[in-house]
């Protein structure tokens, strides 16, 4: 009896350990933001940028260039809100297209969607805060 319950308990511990060790190293808050952002991504971005952020030919750039995200971190919110045009380089390829913005999107929703994009398709481990996004938006050209 004792042996059986010891076995039982240790297998639970083992299962729990496996569960947690497989978890990503993102904070709970970052994961919440990313989860909220996924829904927004499907509605507002996926058509053009694809379910895996893979883009489409030379028409829509992929959202997988982590370097682009780091270098343009302060402009990403403006891209979402106001769109963008002109030549850019993503993953070493040039694009010269037009993206319409989503002007009605709130700062918190922009924080969600950008957290989803940069942690899922990019390598970021942190979320965008609402305050940060508001500050970026105030500086949009």
């Amino acid at each position, binding site marked *: 009896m004792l042996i059986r319950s010891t076995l039982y308990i240790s297998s639970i511990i083992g299962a729990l350990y496996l569960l947690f060790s497989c978890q990503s190293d993102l904070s709970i808050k970052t994961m919440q933001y990313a989860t909220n952002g996924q829904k927004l991504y499907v509605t507002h971005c996926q*058509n053009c940028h694809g379910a895996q952020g893979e883009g*489409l030919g*030379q028409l829509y750039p992929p959202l997988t260039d982590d370097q682009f995200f780091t270098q343009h971190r302060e402009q990403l919110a403006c891209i979402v809100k106001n769109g963008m045009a002109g030549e850019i380089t993503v993953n070493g390829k040039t694009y010269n297209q037009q993206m*319409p913005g989503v002007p009605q999107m709130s700062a918190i929703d922009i924080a969600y969607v950008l957290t989803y994009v940069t942690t899922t398709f990019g390598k970021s481990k942190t979320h965008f805060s609402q305050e940060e996004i508001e500050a970026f938006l105030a500086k949009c050209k």
Partner: protein
Amino acid sequence: MNRLLGSALFAVLLSGVFACSSPERKLPIYGERSTVEKEVDGKVQVDTVYQTIPDFAFLNQDSVLLTQDFFKDKIYVANFFFTHCPSICPTMQRNLLKAYEKYKGNPKIAFLSHSIDFKYDQPYILKDYANKLGVDNDQWQFVTGTKQAIYGMADKYLVYTKEDASVPGGYDHSGYLVIIDPEKRMRGAYDGTNQEQVDKLLEDLDVILKEYQ
């Protein structure tokens, strides 16, 4: 005795195998149909006449008039889109691109995208779009025409299209991918934004290819 039982069992199994293999699947024929009676050698015969895609002449991405001659003896997939469409078109075209890549080089299969933005999508815009999408041969045609001609054509393919200032991009339409056979008849329609239906399209293209081998 045992051997008898064994062979009986074998026979049952075999019949099961054969009962399951149905005759070759064929795609249905869509659209309205009517019957005509005609006399052949003094006898009256009844023929079924199916709805077909009427003749057309549209400017393509190379500013050349494209007519049904191009699709002679071919099965083709038709759809309606526009280059600046922010909603369903990118997904629909991403999916149609999979079909294009699968059948690239197959002379029996072609693709035809009609632009419903008759104001903006001039041939050179369509050409640029095709290039950037990754289409580098004439197997996938992109055409433009007058509003009346294109929207009238959409009705023939049973695809809904409408100029509507209240929707993103200014044009409302459904994202159907329609299979047309070499006899100009509709053989299938698939939601180009739905992954399962796009997989079905690829499967059904293989089926109809067998019919017109």
